[in-house]
């Protein structure tokens, strides 16, 4: 960790984003459980360092694809949480005008392709964005977020192979949270590190602690710079943990208590808070950020709740350009 190179400002920016994701998700969970919010949700608690570390390494014009679990990535890319919250409520002010919902959240203006909720479905798409950048000679990169489970889909294989053959500016980020839905990763693959799979395409594969936001940022930065300068794709595996259910009201009873406990000790915000304190950042500042964030979220909730629903007939719009 080149932690000494970071200004307090930058560190607090990481912190703020991670907390924004966490608090957003906790608020959404509450709204969902109390029945105020429709639909289904897949949440990001515990993985905040992944989204924030990676997305902080990107520039305007870079584009990410996300999954059924998109909220964290959207926030990390700087999407407006008002429009996100409104989307979750199915309001016309939502980032997809209420057509998408939780799983399809995105905003291409902010570099986020609407969430692809078919596991593995986004991998070729991100590859194609990188392909486009290269064909158009644009100085941008594409980042493809996926889970451990997604690496067993055929699209993973096809995509990484093409990115390799065509030397595309794409970073494949695998957030290995140990589970695909209820299934532990050890039940569905034999490699020790998912990054080993990169060698089948002769691209570099790296595995790091995905709960260490600075480590994630630096690793992403390196891969991004490499890709941006024509060095081709990288596969980055981030070791992390989902400290909430897979979806909706899932109690995640398949996660052993010991494992959960350890994960909670190691969760990224707690970890980063200790680090900030050790760097001399005051508790007050940290607290104040949390408070600010909560206010911002309440505003988003208010905005969402007060927003209009689409008209029923809006169903018929937006199919064709």
């Amino acid at each position: 960790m080149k932690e000494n190179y970071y200004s307090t400002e930058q560190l607090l920016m990481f912190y703020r984003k991670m907390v924004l994701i966490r608090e957003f998700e906790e608020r959404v969970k509450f709204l969902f459980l109390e029945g105020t919010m429709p639909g289904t949700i897949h949440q990001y608690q515990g993985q905040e360092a992944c989204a924030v570390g990676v997305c902080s390494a990107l520039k305007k014009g870079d584009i990410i694809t996300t999954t059924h679990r998109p909220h964290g990535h959207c926030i990390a890319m700087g999407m407006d949480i008002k429009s996100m919250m409104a989307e979750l409520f199915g309001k016309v002010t939502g980032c997809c005008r209420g057509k998408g919902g939780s799983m399809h959240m995105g905003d291409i203006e902010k570099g986020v392709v609407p969430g692809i909720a078919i596991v593995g479905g986004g991998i070729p798409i991100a590859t194609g964005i990188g392909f486009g950048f290269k064909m158009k000679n644009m100085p941008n990169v594409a980042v493809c977020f996926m889970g451990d489970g997604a690496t067993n889909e055929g699209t993973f294989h096809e995509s990484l192979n093409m990115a390799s053959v065509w030397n595309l500016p794409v970073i494949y980020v695998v957030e290995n949270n140990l589970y695909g839905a209820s299934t532990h990763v050890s039940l569905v693959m034999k490699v020790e590190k998912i990054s080993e799979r990169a060698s089948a395409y002769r691209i570099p594969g790296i595995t790091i602690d995905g709960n260490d936001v600075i480590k994630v940022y630096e690793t992403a930065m390196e891969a991004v710079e490499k890709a941006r300068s024509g060095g081709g794709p990288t596969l980055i595996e981030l070791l992390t943990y989902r400290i909430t259910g897979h979806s909706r009201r899932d109690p995640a009873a398949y996660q052993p208590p010991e494992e959960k406990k350890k994960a909670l000790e190691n969760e990224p915000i707690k970890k980063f808070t200790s680090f900030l304190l050790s760097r001399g950042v005051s508790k007050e500042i940290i607290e104040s950020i949390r408070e600010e964030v909560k206010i911002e979220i309440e505003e988003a909730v208010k905005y969402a709740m007060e927003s209009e629903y689409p008209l029923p007939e809006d169903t018929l719009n937006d199919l064709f350009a």
Partner: protein
Amino acid sequence: MARLTIAEALREAIREEMRRDENVYCIGEDIGIPGGWGGAFTVTLGLEKEFPDRIINTPISEAGFFGVALGSSLIGLRPIIDVQYGDFLFCAMDQIANQIAKLRYMSGGKVKIPIVIRAPVGVTGRGAQHSQMMEPFFHCLPGIKIVVPATAYDAKGLLKTAVRDDNPVLIFEHKLLYGAKGVRSESGSIDASSEIPEEEYTIPFGKAVVRKQGKDITIIATLLMMYRAYEAAQILEEQGISVEVIDPRSLVPFDWETVKKSIAKTGRVVIVEESPRRGGIGAEIAATIAEEMLDFLIAPVRRIAAPDTPAPFSPVMEKFYVPSTERIVQTVKEIINISS
């Protein structure tokens, strides 16, 4: 007799068939993880305890495990494939449409493909990729039977028949009809539970059920739409319009006899479907009626369907998207008006 939900009835059917024939097994994602949910809608919940080696949890590799099921069926196994949402059938589409549905035919009848595919459908608050009615995409595919049980009684009997059938059978189950419980319960659900007899039973394919007798008009509907049609029929009854409601229960084979008998009586027919109108199941039904029953019709065939768009997320739009009881009531009245 016990009152079971569809999820429970399916589970019982699977359990009984697995006990009866050791070649029967289940394969899919998250179907038998201790502490998990028994698949996305609890159908296989707990079965791994009785059959630890025959409830196979797979990687997220739909094309792969559909192919695995197919391969295993070639040597006498009888897989029941579980896909978490019908929408994901597209990920395995080559295996289903090019392999499973064709291999027997290509072989000149020399191989048998006893495979059951269970897939949840229904427009239920999840947006475009977790809501599709998949029937139209398979209805036009020769080589696969299609079953659409709307009650727990039918679900059990039809699934048992499917497992014993030596051919590929696709079962579409509706998310709002499962009656899944606890953390997997579904908002907006409808009670589709039935009293299930103690004794074993199966239900043959190609036998429709007349859910309600009537004489003025025939409504054909499956799954959730059958309930809406039934509700509409009751409302209409009070207004003096006598509606016959037919639930085909299987789409391939299709019980033309029951449908024709009904239309011969009523002279009017409405097909209600949850999928987009263009190319839906209703098209085939309406076309066949137009070809074979023109002389009986005293009013044009009508289809009530979703619009030709993907499913939107927002509850407001979703409500507009899925045919409602009111829409059915209104359409029936229109038909009666123009034709009496």
